[in-house]
């Protein structure tokens, strides 16, 4: 028994070593779920990074002549497993990691990276966060070793409320969200910011429901209807969002829904026609925002991976910025790369972006768009083959979504 156990461990170790002994490359460990219920999200991200590295970096000369490579590590969606995978990546010589799905895993990694760097100053690790949006990650818990390339929940709400500020038709707002940290943050930010910007808007209701447990949203919709709201703000994602929108359509509720994640993987498909003209989203980009080259990149990507739809522009932005930082610093040392990234201004495909030095939060333009029928003009491309796509209603420049930070960064 014991000897076979040792053999298994040796096997595991040797597998890891083979994975790590490839040629001279700049490698970034992608630690996200690659199996289990959220594997599609993780897998889509990994493919996006690989594609971005190939087309945007390696075909343009790479990093000081070396190739950039992303290697997947399956954290199975668990914060604990993320740490084990981090150790595996470090063992294999990785000095850069990226992660995005789930703030729980992000918190776990940021803690582990901070401790590792404090305890192993000669082998520091740098963490690029491409999608975990908990504001605390660049506020109370900010770290020199962490950079975030997505706008956080508060910044997104700042952008949404700026848009609402100018829409005088909005009188009564209902806030509904999942009953966990993200939903709480969205609700809190919405109330604070609306109170500041539009005192005349009344919050006519606020509901939190357990995440992923509500089958039938009809009662919630009945309540929204009874409240007389004309606008709904929700941080819901996944089925909690699709079910809400479907139930609203069934009951003939005609309010607009301001969302964070309606364009996300699978949601457009699940909403289908029921979201038409009612669902709005806030993103850094969507297919119908004109760009120099991303449209072609996205179409090629969708063609190469049938069933996947290019969604994260920030994946490309991050890849390019990291490559640029390494090239300017002429180093692949995490600390040098971090210093080069700080305060970097970069012409991204959605406009100029800026990596703020004080909290390592990327400032980027944001777009509010509405789910509308594909018409070949303003809605040139549909989303996930539904026949409906996103139509830009407003764009918010990176200056207008900036928020002060409470970050007190410990710098090495």
């Amino acid at each position, binding site marked *: 028994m014991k000897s076979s156990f040792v053999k298994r461990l040796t096997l595991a170790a040797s597998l890891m070593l083979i994975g790590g002994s490839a040629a001279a490359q700049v490698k970034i460990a992608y630690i996200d779920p690659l199996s289990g219920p959220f594997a599609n999200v993780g897998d889509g991200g990994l493919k996006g990074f690989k594609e971005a590295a190939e087309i945007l970096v390696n075909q343009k000369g790479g990093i000081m002549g070396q190739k950039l490579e992303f290697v997947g590590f399956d954290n199975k969606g668990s914060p604990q497993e993320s740490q084990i995978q981090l150790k595996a990546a470090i063992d294999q010589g990785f000095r850069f990691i990226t992660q995005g799905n789930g703030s729980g895993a992000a918190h776990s990694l940021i803690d582990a990276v901070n401790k590792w760097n404090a305890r192993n100053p000669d082998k520091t690790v740098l963490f690029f966060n491409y999608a975990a949006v908990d504001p605390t990650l660049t506020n109370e818990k900010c770290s020199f070793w962490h950079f975030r390339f997505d706008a956080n929940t508060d910044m997104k709400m700042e952008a949404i409320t700026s848009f609402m500020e100018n829409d005088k038709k909005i009188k009564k707002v209902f806030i509904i969200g999942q009953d966990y940290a993200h939903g709480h943050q969205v609700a809190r930010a919405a109330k604070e910011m609306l109170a500041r910007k539009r005192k005349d808007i009344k919050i006519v209701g606020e509901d939190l429901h357990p995440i992923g447990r509500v089958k039938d949203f*009809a009662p919630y919709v009945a309540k929204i209807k009874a409240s007389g709201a004309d606008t709904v703000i929700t941080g819901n994602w996944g089925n909690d969002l699709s079910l809400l929108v479907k139930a609203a359509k069934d009951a003939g509720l005609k309010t607009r829904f301001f969302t964070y994640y309606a364009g996300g993987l699978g949601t457009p498909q*699940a909403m289908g026609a029921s979201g038409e003209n009612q669902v709005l989203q806030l993103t850094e980009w969507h297919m119908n925002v004109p760009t120099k080259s991303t449209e072609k990149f996205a179409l090629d990507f969708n063609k190469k991976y049938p069933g996947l739809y290019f969604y994260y522009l920030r994946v490309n932005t991050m890849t390019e910025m990291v490559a640029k930082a390494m090239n300017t610093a002429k180093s692949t040392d995490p600390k040098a790369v971090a210093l080069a990234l700080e305060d970097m201004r970069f012409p991204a495909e959605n406009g100029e972006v800026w990596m703020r030095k004080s909290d390592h939060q990327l400032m980027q333009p944001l777009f509010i768009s509405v789910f509308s029928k594909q018409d070949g003009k303003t809605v040139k491309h549909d989303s996930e083959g539904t026949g409906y796509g996103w139509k830009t209603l407003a764009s918010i420049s990176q200056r207008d979504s900036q928020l002060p930070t409470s970050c007190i960064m410990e710098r090495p």
Partner: protein
Amino acid sequence: MEFVVISLLNGITYGLLLFMLSSGLTLIFSMMGILNFAHASFYMLGAYFAYQISTWVGFWPGLLVAPLLVGAVGAAVERYGLRRAHRFGHVAELLFTFGLAFLVEEIVHLIWGKVAVDYRIPLELDGTLFTLFDTSFPIYKGFMMLVSVGMLVALYMLLTRTRIGLIIQAALTKPDMVEALGHNVPRIFMLVFGGGTALAGLAGVIGGNAFVTEPGMAAAVGSIVFVVVVVGGLGSLTGAFVASLLIGCIQTFSVAMTLSITDVFALIGVALPEGSQVARLTITQLAPVLPYVLMVAILIFRPRGLMGARES
């Protein structure tokens, strides 16, 4: 008033769907003593089968064929898996269905992917049945109620008017009797398991497009169905019916309540300390977990459930 009527309709629709799920589970449990952990997985299979059939030949054939297919899968599972597990006792059976639920989810991931599939309501059922005080009631919800009630009637007829129904009924109250009757017990077991899973499959067919057909749908209803069965009383179809409607309505109406825990305690004359997290919770927030609270309460005050005849 408006709100009450709408909520009641919503509650009954949801309750009837729950009953379609829990009736099969109760039948299987009463007859075979097996708590089918994978019951909700058959519900999911029903939805996916119906989706697949609807992409080929439309919704209506799927309504009939998908439950039968699910029933066939269920019967095969009983014949080639459960029957073997049965030899090792109830724990092995339970674990078998537990593993099965896991496997079904993974296979659904594999075949249909990890995101929701576009399983739509048929066009002829898409629309508003009637408008009540400015809130529309969709045709499809009416259709769901119709199918559930139809199933309820059919099940009632089957149990009271046919020979096999009488045997099943006898087995509900006196599990040892079936063997004494000298019937081919394994075959009856296979039929009951197939039939029970077919009912779950039917629920999937009509629930899948009303809500969302995705790989997590089984896990989302799985535990609530157990709650229904415990609250209603193990082995009691009537109990399952009452509990389904009760839980459907509780969930719907509690969403409507804006009371907080503090208010509730104030009603019974207890003042809670201000500002604690518990005190701030509203009934609405708690709505989806109320069934579990109800279950715990039932277990403490009436351990055999609302209508249960048996102690365990």
